[in-house]
């Protein structure tokens, strides 16, 4: 028998927070995946909402290319507020 499809599980811990990836489950379809995710990842009230996404629908960046992919942000310190000198007596900036 072939393996049941794999689903990635995302849990919203409480209203106002975004869903966060917690792990995965095997299930025949989306409904079964939600129920399995509930049983596996929210047995102790860990969430108020679940997302399940077929694992093969996720395209990930290549970890091997991570250095060059994120390198452009490395030399732009001026994107940070602390780069700018504003005297201490100036408030609310």
């Amino acid at each position, binding site marked *: 028998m072939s393996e049941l499809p794999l689903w990635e599980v995302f849990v*919203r811990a409480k*209203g*106002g*927070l*975004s869903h966060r990836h917690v792990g995965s489950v095997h299930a025949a379809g989306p409904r079964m995946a939600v129920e399995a995710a509930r049983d596996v990842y929210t047995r102790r009230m860990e969430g108020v*909402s679940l997302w399940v996404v077929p694992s093969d629908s996720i395209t990930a960046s290549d970890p091997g290319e991570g250095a060059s992919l994120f390198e452009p942000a490395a030399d*732009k310190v*001026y*994107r*940070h*507020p602390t*780069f*700018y*000198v*504003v*005297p201490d*007596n*100036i*408030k*609310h*900036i």
Partner: protein
Amino acid sequence: MYTVELSKRHETEIAEDAGRRAAFESRVAADEFIEPKDWMPEAYRKTLIRQISQHAHSEIVGMLPEGNWLTRAPSLRRKAILLAKIQDECGHGLYLYAAAETLGASRDEMTEALHSGAAKYSSIFNYPTLTWADMGAIGWLVDGAAILNQVPLQRTSYGPYARAMVRICKEESFHQRQGYEAMMQLANGTKAQRRMAQDALNRFWWPALMMFGPPDESSPNSERSMRWRIKRDTNDELRQKFVDVSVPQAEALGLSIPDPDLKWNDERGSYDYGTIDWEEFYAVVRGEGPVAKERIKARVDAWEGNAWVREAAMAHEAKRAARKAA
């Protein structure tokens, strides 16, 4: 028979709606967040789509006045900073469009509403940027005013909007600081540079005050938006806060606020300020701002001129998929 059946169903629906509406009202009153799949009144959804998309449009149109100085920035440092800031505004627009899309608005619909004039954006971007000092004044005042508006929105009742605002506020701080730093440099520079800084303050002060929207008594939707926790402070409260924090900042620069009626009020613990020219505000909102037509034309030209890029990207992807399938 048929009509009786229909009206019966209608009544049940109304009763159901009343129940859900009451539950919704008590959730927002308890400061709970509303998420995309939750039931919400149609008016809540519509108000949010309008507010979030107009906020997004403001970020996108807001790139244009600054883009005007990109090729003429006085140094490579200033150019890199300005470019990074404009890039951020674009990103902020995208976070907000994405939040509006969770309410069922499509990106094309929103773009079309901006281009046709059906949707508004912040009136401040319909003023021209005449000198380099305007880049400083915009960062200091316009982004300063935006921050005051946006900080309370991090706790707005609609989850995706609130989360977009958290990201935006985190990134916004550099915008204001770089602007103030640029103003400091001009204010401590030559006589001509000081004059340029003062002139920018003169031109942007009143439009910045108008950014908070009409006075409370003429803001008809404010009360409902406050009840639904879409808004958390009134326009006038935020405007007063802005005046109170900005005056000492201007003083530190040695520049003067162009308002003869500006005066500290000991009793209120706040500054009194002069009357805002609301006629001008409404005219700019109606699209009669000095460069309103130019702004929309720039957006429409960009959208139409780049249509081939979107088409090419889709065609390329389709070709790739076909090759993979073969």
